[in-house]
C-alpha cells in the first residue's frame, strides 16, 4: 500500500505537469508569445495542485489508518473483551495485525480467526476509501489548476512562493525535531513521575530499576560526573597544549600533517573506542590496581586492598573517553587561539616577552572565554557519550570515589533499560525517558551557555 501510494503520487504529479504545460503551450501559440510565465511554470503549478493535497492525505493515512481500523474493530469486539485493560487490548490487536500480515493464521482459535478476518476487511475498506479520496482530490486539483491558467497568469511567482514555503518547512524541521525531543521526553517522563515522585528520583541513592523498581538516580549522576571528570582531566590539558603548540609553535608543514591526524581520533566510531577500552585499557588498569594493592600491603601501608580493581572501571572508560575528546578540545581551542589578533602578540613581543610568556599572559587570557566554551562543549559530549561507558564502565549503581571500581552512568542505564523487551507502560521503560530528560536538560544548558560565550567572543574581535 505504501509503495502504491508513492507511485500514485508520482503518476499524478507528472501527468499534471504535462497537462498543465500542454495547455500553457497552446495558450502561448494563441497569444503569440505574450505570457507572463514560461509553460514549464504552468506545469509545475498544476502539479502542485495535484500532489500537495494528495500528499497530505497519504501522510494522514500513514499516521491514522491503523488507528482508525483498530478503533472500529475495538468497537465491534464482543462484550467479553471489555474486561481487558487498554494495554492488554492493544497487545491483542497487535497479535491480530501480525496474524493478518502473515496469512498463516490456521490453527488459532475461531474467535481470533474471525477477528483477524474482520480486521482484514476493515483494513481493506480503509485502504479502498483512501484510494478513492486520493483519486478524487487529485483529479479535482488538476482540473482546478488547469482552469486558472491564463496568458497573464503569474504561475512563476506562485510556484516560487510554494517552493519557498517548502524550503522554509525544511528549515522548520529543526524546530520540529527539538519539539519532538522535548515533547516525547516530557510526555513519557510525566507518566513516570506519576508512579515515582520526582524528588525521590533525583535524590534517591538506590537504583535497582531492573529488579526491584528502586529509582534513586543519584548514583547514576555521580557515575556520569566521575567519568566525565576523568575524561576532562585527560582531554583538557592534552587538548589545550596541543592547540597551543599547533597554533603558536608548530611549523606550517607540521601543522598540515598533525591536524588531520588528530582529526582521525574524532572520526573513529565510539564503539571502536569502547572495544579498545574493554580489550586493552580495562585489563591494564585492573592489573595495575592489583599491583598497587599488593605493593601497599607488602610495604605495610595498608592491611587490606585499597583499590577495587574490577574488570570494568570508571578509570578505563574515562581515560578512553578523554582520548576521544582530545581533538574536540584541540580543534575548538585552536580556532579561538587563532582568532586572537596578531597585534596582541606583537605588542607582547615588543615588550620583550618570551613566546611562552606571550602565550600564558596574553594569548590564553584573551582566548579564555572561547577556551571555556570549548571545554563546556567537551563536557557536554562526555556526559552524553554512550558506547564507551556501556562497554567499559560497568553496571553497578554505587557512589564510590575509587576510580578502579565499576560505576554506571545515565547513558548506560538508558541503554540497558531500553534494550530487550520494552513495554511503554512499564515504569522501567519510562524511567529511561526521565533519565533522558535529565541528560537532555543538562547537555542543553552546557551547549546554550557555550554557544552564547562563543558568539559573544567572536563579536569582540571581528
Amino acid at each position, binding site marked *: 500500500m505504501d509503495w502504491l501510494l508513492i507511485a500514485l503520487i508520482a503518476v499524478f504529479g507528472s501527468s499534471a505537469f504535462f497537462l498543465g504545460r500542454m495547455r500553457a503551450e497552446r495558450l502561448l501559440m494563441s497569444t503569440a508569445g505574450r505570457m507572463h510565465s514560461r509553460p514549464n511554470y504552468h506545469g509545475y503549478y498544476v502539479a502542485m495542485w495535484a500532489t500537495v493535497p494528495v500528499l497530505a492525505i497519504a501522510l494522514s493515512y500513514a499516521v491514522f489508518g491503523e488507528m482508525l481500523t483498530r478503533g472500529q474493530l475495538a468497537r465491534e469486539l464482543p462484550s467479553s473483551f471489555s474486561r481487558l485493560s487498554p494495554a492488554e487490548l492493544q497487545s491483542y490487536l497487535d497479535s491480530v495485525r501480525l496474524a493478518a500480515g502473515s496469512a498463516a493464521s490456521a490453527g488459532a482459535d475461531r474467535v481470533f480467526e474471525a477477528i483477524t478476518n474482520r480486521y482484514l476487511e476493515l483494513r481493506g475498506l480503509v485502504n479502498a476509501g483512501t484510494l478513492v479520496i486520493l483519486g478524487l482530490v487529485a483529479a479535482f486539483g488538476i482540473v482546478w489548476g488547469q482552469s486558472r491558467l491564463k496568458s497573464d497568469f503569474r504561475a*512563476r511567482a506562485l510556484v*516560487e512562493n510554494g517552493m*519557498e514555503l*517548502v*524550503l*522554509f518547512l525544511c*528549515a*522548520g*524541521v*529543526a*524546530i520540529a*525535531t527539538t519539539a519532538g*525531543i522535548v515533547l516525547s*521526553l516530557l510526555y513519557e517522563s510525566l507518566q513516570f513521575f506519576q508512579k515515582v515522585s520526582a524528588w525521590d528520583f533525583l535524590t534517591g541513592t538506590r537504583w535497582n530499576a531492573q529488579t526491584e523498581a528502586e529509582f534513586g538516580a543519584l548514583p547514576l549522576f555521580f557515575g556520569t560526573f566521575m567519568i566525565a571528570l576523568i575524561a576532562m582531566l585527560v582531554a583538557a*590539558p592534552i587538548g589545550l*597544549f*596541543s592547540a*597551543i*603548540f*599547533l597554533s*603558536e*609553535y608548530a611549523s606550517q608543514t607540521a601543522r598540515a600533517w598533525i591536524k588531520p*591526524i*588528530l582529526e*582521525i*581520533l574524532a*572520526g*573513529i*566510531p*565510539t*564503539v*571502536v*573506542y569502547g*572495544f579498545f577500552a574493554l*580489550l586493552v585499557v580495562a585489563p591494564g588498569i585492573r592489573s595495575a590496581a592489583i599491583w598497587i594493592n599488593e605493593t601497599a600491603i607488602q610495604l605495610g601501608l595498608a592491611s587490606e586492598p585499597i583499590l577495587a580493581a574490577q574488570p570494568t572501571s570508571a578509570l578505563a572508560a574515562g581515560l578512553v573517553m578523554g*582520548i576521544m575528546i*582530545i581533538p574536540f578540545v584541540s580543534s575548538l581551542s585552536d580556532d579561538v587561539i587563532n582568532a586572537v589578533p596578531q597585534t596582541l602578540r606583537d605588542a607582547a613581543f615588543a615588550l620583550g616577552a*618570551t*613566546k*611562552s610568556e606571550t602565550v600564558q599572559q596574553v594569548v590564553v587570557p584573551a582566548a579564555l572565554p572561547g577556551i571555556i566554551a570549548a571545554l563546556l*562543549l567537551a563536557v557536554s*559530549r562526555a556526559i*552524553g*557519550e*554512550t*558506547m564507551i561507558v*556501556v*562497554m567499559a564502565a560497568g553496571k553497578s549503581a554505587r557512589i564510590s570515589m575509587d576510580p578502579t571500581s565499576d560505576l554506571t552512568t545515565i*547513558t548506560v542505564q*538508558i*541503554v540497558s533499560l531500553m*534494550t530487550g523487551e*520494552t513495554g*511503554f507502560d512499564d515504569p522501567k521503560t519510562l524511567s529511561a*525517558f526521565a533519565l533522558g530528560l535529565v*541528560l537532555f536538560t543538562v*547537555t*542543553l544548558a552546557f*551547549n546554550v551557555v557555550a*554557544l552564547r560565550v562563543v558568539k559573544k567572543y567572536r563579536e569582540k574581535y571581528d
Partner: protein
Amino acid sequence: MTDTARTQASKARAMKRLRKRRAADGRFRYYGLSAILTALGALAVLIFTIGSQALSAATYHVVNYDITLDPAVIAPEGAGRPEDISRNVEGFYGLVRDNLIATFPEAAKDRASRREVADFVTRLAVLPTAQMVAEQPELVGTRITLTAPLNDDLDLYLKGQGVRERKLGVGAIAAIKGEVEGGYRVTGAGAFDAVVAALAVAAADLPADAAEPGVLLTAGPSTGRLTEISAGSGHLELLTGNIKDFARLQSKARLIVALESERTISDQQIAWTLALKDMGRIERVPRKTLLTNSDSTYPELAGGLAAIVGSLLTMLVTALVAMPIGIFAAVYLEEFAPKNRVTEFIEVNINNLAAVPSIVFGLLGAALYINFLGMPRSAPLVGGLVLALMTFPVVIIASRAALKAVPPSVRSGALAVGASQMQTVFHHVVPLAAPGILTGAILGMARALGESAPLLLIGMVAFVGDVPRSPTDESTVMPVLIFSWSNNAERAWEPLTSAMIIVLLAFLLLMNGLVVFLRRKYERRW
C-alpha cells in the same frame, strides 16, 4: 666605579633571570610537544592493537575432508529433491564425522572421544556444500573434497593464541618398550634434557601447589602424552598415530602450562589437529566468510554480510531524508530567510541539535516512530530516520558554509539579467556550491555510519541471521554488530571483532577519501 659594579651585578642578575625565562620557554614548548605526542601515541596504540588482532583473524584454518556422497545418506528414498538435500545438514555432517573417525580409529572407542572428534567441525559448516550438491545433483555418489572451517579454539591454538605452549627439541629416541599398565617407556640418552630444564623453569614460575604442566611428544602424524620425565626416559601414552613413528622420525616436545581441565581444548584434540596438519589436510586461508556470511553463534562461521547490507540500507534511508531536508534548509537560511525572530530561533535549534547526545535521538525514535507511529522495531527504515534527524543539522551547517563561499557577484550577475531569486539560487548558486555541499553531506553520513547508541534503543541489536532485503526487514548495522560480538565470551570473538572494526574503518576511510578527492578536484577559490 660603584656605578659599573652595580651595573655588572644587575647585568649578571638579568642574565640569570633571562636564562630562567628562556628555560621556562623551552619547557612550555616541550609540554605542548608531549601533549601532541601523547594524543598521536594513543591513536597509534589503538590502531596497532586492533590492526594486529584483525590481521590474525584475516586468515583461518580449514580442514579438507575427502568424502563419498553416499546416496543412501545424502538423498535417501523420498528425500531426493534438491531442497531436501540442501536441508540435509545432518547427513553431510555424519559423513564428515565418519571421515574423521576413519582417519583416527581411536576416536571410536567411547562416547567422550566421539564427542571430541565431533567438535572439530560445526554442524552448520557443511551447509555451503549441501547447497552446492543440491544445485548439482549429479555429484551424488561421487567423491568430493569438503572444506570446512576448523573449530575456533583449535584455530586459535594453531595460530599460537589459544593455549600458551613452548616447543622444545628432543634428542633421538633409542628404545621404545611396551609397559604393563599400558603406554610405552621411551628411552634415549639425554633425549629429554631440554624438557626437564623447561619444566624446572615453569615450576619456578607457578605457585607451589599447582599441578605439573602437560607435555606432548610429537613425531610426524603421531602424538603422545609424556609423563614421568627424566633426562633419559619418559612414559609415553599414545594419543594418536603409530608408536613406531617416534623411533623413526625426529620428535618434538610441546610444554603446555595450562591444565587440561582449564582449557577449551583437550590433549587428544591437539594431537588430532597436529596429525591433520602433518597430513596436509589443514590449510590456512583468507577468511572470506567475514564478508560473505551472516552472523552466527559460532565464531568460525560468523560474518558481517547482513550487517553490511543493513548499514547500506540504513544509510540509504538517512541520505534520502537528511540530504534534501538539510540542503533545502541551508538554502532557505542562507538565501531567503529574513532576519527575524523565527529565523533566529531556527538557527539556535540547529546549533543545539548538532550537540544533543546521540542517545537522545534514540529515545525520540523509540517514542515517536515505534510507540506512536507503530513502525517496525529493528528495521533500517526506523534506524535511517533516527540517524537522519541526527545528521541533517550537520548537513545544514556544512551546506551553509559552502553557500556562503559563493561570491555575491554571481548572484548580482544572475539578478541583473532578470533571473528571479529562486532561479538565481537554483541555477547558479547551488550548482557552484555543490561540491562543498556534497562533501559536508558525505562527512555527515560517515558520522551516521559509525553511530550505534541510538540504534540500540530501537532494537537493532537483535541477532540477525538473514541478509535484509528491504528497509522494513529486521536488521542490524556494522557498529552494532561490533558491539554484540565484543559482548561474546569466547576468546575467538576478539580477533573477529577487530577484523569487523577494520571493515567498518575501511568504509569510513573510503567516504573520507571521497571527500578529499572531491575537495582536490572541485575546490575553487574566488
